[in-house]
């Protein structure tokens, strides 16, 4: 092993800056992903075939192709049709679009796991379909999807490392730059590992806590 404390200590403040970039990229992308994902999720259970099909195709295309490839197409491919995105913009669009597909599936599962009777009762009591979704189904679904959404954010923190291929100076890329500078692989990456864990561990704990609060028997969450 080639761990050198001096390099580790010199790298750490620089890595902190990279971790901050990772964090804000993930926060922005998850926020956009949540909003779009909610729409995708609702569209996936829509009565209207056109809407349902569109959402399904979107979900399958995003989930069926590697995020790395999507990022490369966004950054290197789009300029050939006249759209020249900055690296950070391409990164956020790629991560958000990806997140929307996965969050959409979480919401779909959440909506579908709210008991049928709830919907029937709401409709019978005179609420319209959209009102039923807005006031009866979604509030219950939200509670159920909170733990998987938290996990989705953890996934985002890790997946955002892929934008390092667009040379955005997030945590992984910052680590690689220090590797090149100090010609030492292990010491900077020890810091990178620690910082990823510092971000993800509290969140996985939070997800676990939420899971327990919602359903002590874990019956409902199991099929999300």
């Amino acid at each position, binding site marked *: 092993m*080639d761990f050198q404390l001096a390099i580790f200590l*010199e790298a750490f403040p*620089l890595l902190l*800056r990279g971790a901050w970039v990772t964090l804000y990229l993930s926060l922005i992308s998850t926020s956009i992903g949540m909003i779009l994902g909610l729409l995708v999720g609702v569209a996936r259970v829509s009565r209207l075939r056109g809407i349902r099909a569109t959402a399904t195709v979107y979900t399958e295309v995003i989930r069926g192709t590697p995020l790395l490839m999507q990022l*490369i197409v966004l*950054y*290197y491919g789009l*300029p*050939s049709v*006249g759209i*020249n995105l900055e*690296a950070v913009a391409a990164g956020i669009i790629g991560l958000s679009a990806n997140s929307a597909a996965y969050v959409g599936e979480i919401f779909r599962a959440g909506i579908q796991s709210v008991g049928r009777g709830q919907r029937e009762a709401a409709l019978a009591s005179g609420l319209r379909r959209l009102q039923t979704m807005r006031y009866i189904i979604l509030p219950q679904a939200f509670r159920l999807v909170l733990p998987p959404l938290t996990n989705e954010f953890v996934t985002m923190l890790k997946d955002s490392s892929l934008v*390092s*291929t*667009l*040379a955005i*100076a997030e945590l992984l890329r*910052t680590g*690689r*730059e*220090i*590797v*090149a*500078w*100090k*010609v*030492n*692989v*292990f010491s900077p990456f020890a810091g990178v590992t620690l910082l990823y864990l510092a971000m993800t561990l509290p969140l996985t704990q939070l997800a676990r806590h939420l899971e327990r609060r919602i359903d002590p028997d874990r019956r409902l969450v199991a099929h999300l």
Partner: protein
Amino acid sequence: MQKRIACGLGLMLLVGLALAGWVEAGGVERVKKAGVLKVGSDVTYPPFEVMQAGKPAGFDVDMAQEIAKALGVKLEYTNTAWDGIFAALKVGKFDMLLSGISITEERKKSYDLVFSDPYFLSGQGVGVRVGDTRIKSAADLRGKVVGVQINTTGQAAAEKVGGIKEIKKYEQLPEAYADLKAKRVDAVVADYPVLVANAKEDKKFAPVKGVQLGEPEKLGIPVRKEDADLMTVVNQVIADLKKSGRYDRMRKKWFGE
């Protein structure tokens, strides 16, 4: 109605193409108008370019500054990944690249580039573990496992040797050195000055003295073919730097020779 929409779209497309064409005509004018020179570089290649405490520094960075100064514009030195760097230039992310790039016919052809006059003479060297005396010439690489950075002239030079057991391609050289020290590769082929600089940071490997693979390589600054007028400025800068002696000082500063 539909016809009119189609006509409208067609017109927009034409205007768009015309605008695109107009924007691309003449690199010098475009750069001066923008007020910035956009240079792309994989800043992981000391002493040509490296992020020192979070800031790009190196021979190429100084070079880029001189070019921006000659054009009278600000320098925007952007870090980009080596894998995809030529594609990024081609699609217009940058005006030029300064990234320790060897001039090759293949690169000119594949990416429609023109290169500046050579601004540095380099060559492919061989790095081995300190104390490992098995490799004394290029021919000794036969039957060995060799590490290179992907899509570099180092890779091309290793492929030309023939008889090498396996060529392992890495995103970055330090990863190749790590494998060298872990004895998963026997030698690393890379630009000799870079090997020298890297070996100063890590005393566990060293370049083999006097061994060069293939011909000396000329490093140049590529621009897109339609920006060929930028080359006049760049070549003038290179000539002036050499004449004034500033070039030698830059060399001494970064390569210590």
